[in-house]
């Protein structure tokens, strides 16, 4: 398409590209003239919700972002924490929800690709991934196809690049029937002195383009031009991006190799909004300007317009700022890995982006007003009208058969075994995986040191939907608890905040409340937020997803020698319950999965109690006393005990002085532990010292799980529990 065919720039076009009236006026005023077609496209992309965070920024400021380990907080491609012995970890999480709903395989695969690039852009070698998935009801239309595609996509991409997926979570809820969530997390490590920032500096330095050629992929629906484009050119533009993990792998190696020289100043991947966002963001951070010559951008097909080149989201591409005079050295390294490098422009001083195609200047835009100083909104908020009705205390029916109830819960895809998923992911490559998927938190070895890293991702969308603030706190608290179960101290978190349309006041309210709850928990539990991502507009036909603020947290384990596991390992070990139950059933798995009720206030989050519990667990793990530690979450004590027996095939004989239904209560700040009998006295003392309520339940052993309660006994064969649990997902999927 030549410039002559470009549609006329006016307010209507701006609106079809996703800008509102005020924003269109603002860019006209900024420029003192009408923007060109390409300029308007660039502006619309940079001011899109996805790139500008315009509706979320005001709230995100609430998060604590400082901490003793933090070297790089939010604002870069990934955050960075110090993990000791001269090493740092860079990590981030990102959503790929919409692409995955359209084309699950490629959508999920390119999600993994994008997050890996965010990490190695910082000079860190990716060593682990997590994936947090939310699907609709398994029987919803297309759902099995979506599940299959997403899992294959994540697997094929990560497996090929050679980064283990060591954990994650998978939820099912009809609230995601028309909008599934795919949140991908990656973590990389680097020597402290090798950290890289994506800051374009040094006017005169060349801008280099490396990796795959640019095609028409994924030029976004939101920024897509008006009807006048014609059906033909529209059909030429695939909205689905195809990933090439092999190219990603060589790009990764080449970038890390180049970053070991000092021939490059900055590196950034071309993610959402492609060349536009990578170029503008790098210059914005450096307070510099840039000049681009689009004729030099390597193209996959002929005839791309400047607009298309600037906004293409072709995958596996990087933009580098090299030191002037060192270009050849850079090119040689990329060539060794079979990749092309082209010089497509240079850094300038004047804070302007000047973009040329042919002999024409197609854009001349000021950088900071489009980036750092993009519009920011405080959207109207309003609590949903039906909130108090939904929060009304639910009726809690008594279970008639405890073993049957437990097996019923274990047999749901929600609480059943997820190994059908994570067996399709290579989780042992790189030989760092000490605990892979299936435990409370994944544990990675840091080779050459005694210490380890622990990773977990958590959120309970049902809690968040019943009480966003408390749900937000709970996600953070549960992550801390999962880490504490392997003796890890949290050093930072990243998040993916998945919500509906922020222009709807009730959604903005949910968002504000969730962030507020998360921030409070982060403060109280001393976990800084070092990176993250907001995904709005997760709705279909006006129906929004449940608020889903996914939290991925990273912890440090000082010494792996005394690592507890999540299941029972020794006959004769004594089982103890830490924490106290208040019989809370609002939003519980028991009511939702067995009685179809999603009502009530979710369990209270007592941050002080969480802190004391986590301190105690870490201390006991470090002292080497714990053989088993497993936190209580969905399904309460019954599910936690069942999980602890299933994995090791060892039963337990226990008694607890409660009403039987309370086995399924989801009161927070609790965990079960198992210790050698001679350590019982010690653990009692320590619990008292740490002010954590403790109850001795009984002993590990046999092939049955027996729990005597007031007036009833849960008595189940471990083998039967295992069968219900392990067949739950494959049975539901029926592949």
């Amino acid at each position, binding site marked *: 398409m030549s410039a002559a065919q470009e549609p006329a720039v006016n307010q209507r076009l701006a609106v079809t590209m996703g800008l509102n009236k005020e924003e269109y006026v603002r860019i006209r005023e900024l420029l003192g003239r009408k923007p060109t077609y390409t300029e308007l496209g660039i502006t619309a992309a940079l001011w899109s919700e996805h790139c500008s965070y315009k509706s979320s920024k005001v709230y995100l400021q609430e998060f604590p972002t400082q901490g003793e380990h933090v070297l790089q907080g939010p604002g870069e491609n990934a955050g960075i924490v110090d993990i000791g012995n001269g090493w740092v970890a860079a990590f981030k999480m990102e959503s790929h929800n919409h692409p995955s709903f359209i084309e699950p395989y*490629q959508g999920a695969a390119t999600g993994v690709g994008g997050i890996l690039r965010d990490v190695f852009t910082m000079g860190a070698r990716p060593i682990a991934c997590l994936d947090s998935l939310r699907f609709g009801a398994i029987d919803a239309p297309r759902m099995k196809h979506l599940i299959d595609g997403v899992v294959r996509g994540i697997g094929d991409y990560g497996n090929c690049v050679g980064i283990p997926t060591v954990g994650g979570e998978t939820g099912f809820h009809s609230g995601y029937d028309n909008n599934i969530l795919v949140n991908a997390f990656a973590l990389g490590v680097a020597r402290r002195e090798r950290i890289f920032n994506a800051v374009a500096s040094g006017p005169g330095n060349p801008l280099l383009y490396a990796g795959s050629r640019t095609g028409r992929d994924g030029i976004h629906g939101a920024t897509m031009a008006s009807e006048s484009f014609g059906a033909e050119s529209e059909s030429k533009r695939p909205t689905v991006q*195809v990933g090439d993990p092999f190219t990603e792998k060589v790009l990764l190696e080449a970038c890390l190799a180049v970053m070991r020289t000092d021939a490059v100043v900055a590196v950034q991947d071309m993610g959402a909004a492609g060349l536009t966002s990578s170029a503008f963001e790098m210059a914005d951070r450096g307070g510099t300007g840039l000049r681009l010559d689009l004729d030099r951008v390597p193209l*996959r097909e002929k005839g791309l317009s400047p607009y298309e080149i600037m906004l293409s989201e072709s995958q596996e591409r990087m933009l580098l700022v090299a030191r002037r005079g060192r270009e050849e050295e850079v090119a040689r390294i990329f060539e060794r890995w079979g990749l092309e490098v082209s010089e497509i422009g240079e850094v300038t001083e004047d804070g302007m982006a000047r973009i040329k195609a042919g002999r024409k200047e197609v854009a001349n835009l000021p950088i900071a007003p489009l980036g750092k100083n993009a519009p920011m909104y405080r959207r109207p908020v309003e609590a949903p009208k039906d909130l108090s009705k939904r929060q009304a205390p639910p009726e809690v029916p008594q279970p008639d058969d405890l073993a049957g109830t437990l097996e019923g819960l274990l047999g749901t895809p929600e609480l059943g075994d997820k190994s059908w998923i994570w067996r399709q992911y290579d989780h042992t490559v790189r030989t760092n995986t000490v605990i892979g998927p299936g435990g409370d938190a994944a544990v990675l070895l840091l080779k050459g040191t005694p210490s380890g890293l622990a990773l977990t991702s958590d959120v309970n969308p049902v809690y968040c939907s019943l009480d966003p603030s408390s749900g937000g706190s709970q996600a953070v608290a549960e992550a801390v608890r999962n880490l504490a179960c392997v003796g890890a101290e949290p050093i930072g978190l990243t998040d993916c905040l998945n919500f509906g349309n922020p222009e709807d006041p009730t959604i903005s309210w949910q968002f504000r409340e969730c962030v507020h709850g998360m921030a409070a928990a982060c403060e109280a539990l001393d976990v800084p937020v070092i990176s993250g991502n907001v995904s709005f507009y997760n709705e279909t036909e006006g129906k929004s997803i449940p608020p889903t603020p996914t939290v991925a947290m990273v912890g440090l384990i000082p010494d792996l020698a005394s690592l507890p596991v999540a299941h029972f390992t020794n006959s004769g070990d004594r089982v103890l319950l830490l924490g106290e139950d208040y019989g809370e059933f609002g939003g519980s798995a028991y009511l939702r999965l067995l009685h179809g009720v999603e009502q009530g206030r979710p369990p209270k989050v007592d941050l002080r109690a969480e802190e004391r519990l986590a301190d105690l667990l870490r201390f006991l793990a470090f002292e080497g006393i714990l053989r088993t530690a497993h936190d209580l979450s969905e399904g309460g004590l019954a599910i936690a005990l069942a999980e602890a027996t299933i994995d090791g095939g060892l039963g337990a004989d226990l008694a607890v002085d409660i009403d039987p239904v309370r086995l399924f209560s989801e009161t927070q700040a609790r965990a079960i532990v198992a210790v050698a009998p001679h350590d019982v006295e010690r653990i009692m003392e320590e619990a008292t010292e740490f002010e954590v309520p403790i109850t001795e339940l009984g002993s590990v052993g046999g092939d049955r799980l027996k729990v005597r309660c007031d007036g009833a006994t849960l008595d189940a064969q471990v083998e039967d529990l295992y069968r219900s649990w392990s067949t739950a997902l494959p049975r539901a999927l029926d592949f």
Partner: protein
Amino acid sequence: MAVKARITVYPRPEILDPQGKAITGALGRLGFGQVTDVRAGKSFEIELSKKGRNVEKVLAQMCEQLLANTLIEDYSVELLDGGAKK
């Protein structure tokens, strides 16, 4: 009467074809420098127990529903001569 058909599925021309790209490169390294482009697709040979009236339509339905991902792939259907061919 039995009938046999061949279905061919290719990535759409504007869609990145990483496999085709890799094969082009590998053929070049093998000395087949004259190869300028390779597209990699799938081929299915399908046997149906009876011809029916709308066999082509039925085959197209199979493509739409299972064999091709029409968002990123094109397919073509070809009837092989009536079950005779082995």
